[in-house]
């Protein structure tokens, strides 16, 4: 995996030093630590190879501490670590897919190191199955909350809050209240979230 040349002692115009990030991680509150676990579980869900939330969080912190991921100014540390974890999981899926392609078609065109066709990547059956299961699980999680289900459907279709309200006939107040309920449901059911 590519690493930047930024060392842990030197920051950049775009971000803080790794030492700053290390201090911020060290100073995380109990509630931030719980948020981090919830985020790690969210991103690592369904990863192949027995990779779990702790592996993903560990790797994210290592990359921040060694300076390969630079903490940008103005981004809260938890949000930054969440982004790093998401990126690590995406990279991991991509690598798994690439290795599968190499195994399946060593003698075909893909062996020259050409980038993976994005459409092909989208059609990766294993990842697609995990995605379908993940979506089904999310809909199940909020099955008792019709407004939340509409919001999730809108989010899945790439709509922003105002569009969701307009498309599904939800008031802004109902939208905000439902998002709060969703937040609480997510935190409450966090433990059930990591297993595919």
């Amino acid at each position, binding site marked *: 995996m590519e690493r930047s040349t930024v060392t842990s002692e030197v920051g950049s115009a775009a971000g803080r030093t790794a030492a700053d990030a290390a201090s911020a991680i060290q100073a995380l509150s109990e*509630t931030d630590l719980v948020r981090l676990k919830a985020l790690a579980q969210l991103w690592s869900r369904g990863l192949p190879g027995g990779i779990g939330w702790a592996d993903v969080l560990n790797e994210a912190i290592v990359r921040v*501490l*060694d300076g390969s991921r630079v903490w940008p100014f103005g981004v809260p540390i938890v949000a930054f670590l969440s982004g790093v974890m998401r990126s690590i999981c995406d990279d991991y899926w991509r690598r798994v897919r690439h290795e599968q392609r190499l195994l399946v078609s060593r003698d075909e065109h893909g062996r020259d190191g050409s980038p993976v066709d994005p459409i092909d990547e989208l059609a990766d059956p294993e990842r697609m199955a995990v995605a379908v299961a993940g979506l089904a699980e999310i809909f199940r999680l909020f099955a008792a909350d019709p407004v939340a289900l509409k919001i*999730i459907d809108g989010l899945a279709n790439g709509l922003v809050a105002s569009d969701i309200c307009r498309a599904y006939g939800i008031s802004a107040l109902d939208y905000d209240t439902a998002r709060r309920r969703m937040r609480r449901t997510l935190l409450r059911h966090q433990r059930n979230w990591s297993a595919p």
Partner: protein
Amino acid sequence: MTRWHPRIELARVLEALSEDIIAASDGEVREMHGRALASTSREVKLVIKAARADEGSRAMVGADAELGSLSAGPKRLPPHQQRH
């Protein structure tokens, strides 16, 4: 006919849900976790401690060695600590 891309839809939903988790107030996190809060935070602290040690050992060996990367498989915590 438009092709269905569940992975893209899931990515969008996960992004939104991750923002919800980040936006949750301390009070909400405490309320939803109750007594489990302390044990969960201890568990995450252990992961952070392991990451610091990993980072130190990678620095000693050299970043190119990629020791402990995800491709090496899960090994951050002993099985009994890998709670889900």
